[in-house]
């Protein structure tokens, strides 16, 4: 059909009608989208939660400025390919800290406003949202953070702008080893995590009697996965255990071909270092192929602690061993118990994942530092953080290696710079399908043991 150069009146009317309906449909879809978005609103790719109470209105502009909220930024992966389970736990936890502080009168007499942004677990995205937090939202400090790649990228932005950051979960050693004055961390170091993994494997072999000569490591190609795999391989080698590493992109879905290679290696144990849905996909597909956690001892990634998501995505995940950061539930202090009560009330979850505890502490730490500094000046906040003693849900948090006690002076590796030295790391095991992670059996180390490990495939 050849369109006429001079459309008839009827044709023009038809066109107008089509344009009208198209515009109406767009408007309707936009309205539906806006109506259905969860509150607090997700706008574009950034989630912002106004955790503050409204500042009291006053007549004088100066007084208004004095009452303006103190803004703290927070990083969390809330979309794929990030570990959304980690991000959502942090998103639910950090406002609890903000609300508690505001309920106690805020910071320096001003309300605290928490701005949470979605990093998607991607370094480039982490850089962009950190820039935005600092230069657009004018935050005085930043907490949270889940992925090492994001931490590695975000620390550069924070350093360039002189804004203090307390990372909750990123593990990569270089985040602290570069010794930036602004960067603090609650999470364990990659190298320490690897050491725990290897000590656990050694314990299984030497104390429990599991025959382990070859370990397959399935890692993601990130600043978390690669260094942990390298260090784990090195440490296993010292024990005379061979390690074969397979790496995948973050968020990978299809593992069938790589699982055939894993099977051909005939491993005695499998360690998964893939976060997010990639980790879930691998474990379940391995289970489908007959080398899952019910067939071969498997140390699953800590995203497996998000019980609901884990059992939905990995129905055959029973007997997974999982590394857990933070104190076991029987050792929770008052801060952790109070937090857990509020967290349960808000989310309906039975347990708080370690990501949630660390994120909660990161915000409270920053708030305490601002209070002790009596200022929002970055240098003052950094000084306060260096000298802080904070009773958090993870225990008593300090940063003993700092400008007054440098790694060189303390005779320590630079990675210990501004690093919380005492995070508790345990290994738990799901021993019933559908079990909540809080009820998972703590099997290692002996001091935190609540039951014996179930060893499969022997």
């Amino acid at each position, binding site marked *: 059909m050849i369109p006429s150069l001079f459309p008839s009146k009827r044709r023009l009317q038809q066109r107008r009608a089509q344009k009208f309906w*198209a515009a109406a449909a767009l408007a309707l879809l936009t309205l539906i989208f806006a109506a259905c978005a969860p509150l607090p609103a997700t706008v574009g790719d950034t989630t912002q939660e106004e955790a503050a109470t409204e500042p009291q209105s006053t007549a004088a502009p100066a007084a208004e400025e004095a009452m303006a909220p103190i803004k703290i930024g927070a990083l969390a992966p809330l*979309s794929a390919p990030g570990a959304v389970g980690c991000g959502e736990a942090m998103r639910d936890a950090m406002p609890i800290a903000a609300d508690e502080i505001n309920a106690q009168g805020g910071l320096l007499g001003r309300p605290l406003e928490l701005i949470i942004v979605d990093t998607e677990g991607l370094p480039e995205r982490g850089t962009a949202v950190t820039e935005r937090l600092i230069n657009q939202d004018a935050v005085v400090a930043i907490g949270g953070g889940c992925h090492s790649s994001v931490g590695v990228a975000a620390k550069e932005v924070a350093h360039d702008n002189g804004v203090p950051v307390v990372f909750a979960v990123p593990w990569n050693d270089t985040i602290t080893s570069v010794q930036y004055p602004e960067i603090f961390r609650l999470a364990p170091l990659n190298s320490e995590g690897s050491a725990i993994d290897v000590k656990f494997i050694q314990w299984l072999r030497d104390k429990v009697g599991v025959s382990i000569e070859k370990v397959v490591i399935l890692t993601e190609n990130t600043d978390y996965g690669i260094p942990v795999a390298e260090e784990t391989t090195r440490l296993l080698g010292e024990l005379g255990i061979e390690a074969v590493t397979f790496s995948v992109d973050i968020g990978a879905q299809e593992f069938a071909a790589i699982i055939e290679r894993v099977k051909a290696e005939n491993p005695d144990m499998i360690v998964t270092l893939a976060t997010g849905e990639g980790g879930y996909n691998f474990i379940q597909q391995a289970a489908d192929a007959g080398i899952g956690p019910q067939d071969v001892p498997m140390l699953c990634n800590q995203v497996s602690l998000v019980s609901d998501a884990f059992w939905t995505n990995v129905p055959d995940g029973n007997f997974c061993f999982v590394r857990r950061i933070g104190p076991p539930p029987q050792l929770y202090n008052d801060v952790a118990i109070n937090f857990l009560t509020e967290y349960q009330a808000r989310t309906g979850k039975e347990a708080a994942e370690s990501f949630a505890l660390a994120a909660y502490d990161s915000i409270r730490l920053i708030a305490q530092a601002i209070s002790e500094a009596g200022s929002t000046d970055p240098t003052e906040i950094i000084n306060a953080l260096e000298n802080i003693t904070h009773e958090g849900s993870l225990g008593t948090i300090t940063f003993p290696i700092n400008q007054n006690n440098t790694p060189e002076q303390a005779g320590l590796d630079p990675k210990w710079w501004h690093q919380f030295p005492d995070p508790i790391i345990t290994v738990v095991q799901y021993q019933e399908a559908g079990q909540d992670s809080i009820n998972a059996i703590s099997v290692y180390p002996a001091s935190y043991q609540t039951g014996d490990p179930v060893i499969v495939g022997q």
Partner: protein
Amino acid sequence: MACGSLPFARNRMEHAAIFGWALLWFAFWGVVGGVITPQIYARKDLEISQASFGGAVIGAALGPFSLLPLWIATPKIDNRMIGVAGALVVGIFITAFALADPDNLCVANGEFVISQLANGIVIGIIYGLMALGLTLIFSILGVVSFAHGEFYMIGGMVTYFMTAEWLPGAPPIVGILASCVVTFSIGYIFERIFLRPLGSGQIERPGEYAILVTFGLAFFLQYFTQALASANPVKAQRFFPFPRTEIPLDSGSLLRTTPGNITILDTISIPNPRFTAALLALIMLAALLWFLYHTWTGKALRAVSQDRQAAAVAGINPNSMNTLAFSLGAMLAGLSGASLVQVFSWLPQVGIPAAARSFVIIVLGGMGSLPGAFLGGLVVGIVEAAGTGCVPDATRAAAYIPAYGMVILTLVLLLKPTGLFGREL
């Protein structure tokens, strides 16, 4: 020792030089054949449509030993000749690989090779179903739908929510049918509102408009789903647990099934969810082909894809066929998602890599060709499985998965831009 900074990397080729020389041979003589052959054929005033592609493949196969006779005799280059040369190239490639890395699992372990091949075929069938909808839309509307991955995602989401959240315990077919209805409806409404103006000549730059409007739909569907269903991954339970069977009864050496797996000849092991997804894909392919070749509407769709104006003269309304094609294409993507939500963890962004892979497949198979899309899916599935299984470096093998398809795409665009079954431009 390792490459770069990966001290744990291992498994290098024992004689990498052999493989390197083979690749160099292919590249050099392929380029020589591809460049010089059409010039010689043109000088002799002969048919040159296949000269570049044929010359490249024939040159890559035997180098000067095949090119010189070709240039002297200048026979008609037909598909058979290209097929034989292509088989030779593949044979030389495999031989060089086997000589270079004799201990590689793909060389030394026959069972492993068969398993990987089976994996590749199964996932390739599923990829094919994914790409069918995209190529159907392109063949009728001339539009590449950038929202294809999101229809795939919605198909899986609807199936999951129907069978796990809204009607727990409902048979999977309910979820699958619901996903078909939802994706077909969204496709229908979207086409009527946003793509119909394309067919009536109201849009000044239809190509750009189609890209933008389908991109817009993709973003809308992705974030709308995230707002409704959250970004947490979900997964449907396996649709049909297999009964426990062994044939023969005492050993199961021919066939053995457990609820989650089927093992054939003690060698080929296919997980239940993949098997059922591939079976569903084959059934849908058969149904689609029957629809297109044995119903009036299907024939009308094919007629519009061949010549819109001639079809209109014959009494077929091209606009209605546009709507039907887009809705059907969306439904096929949704169906593909519905069958795979029991295989992969599902989240609002799950469609992005699926769509990218579908684009590779339809270009490989030939834009607008249904058999091409299916064959392209198989090729991509097998190449991915082979690449992942055979690349010596274990630390890289799976990380390169997205690259394997792209290598194939690049080669096809270089050698045969119309794809395997594409129409001549």
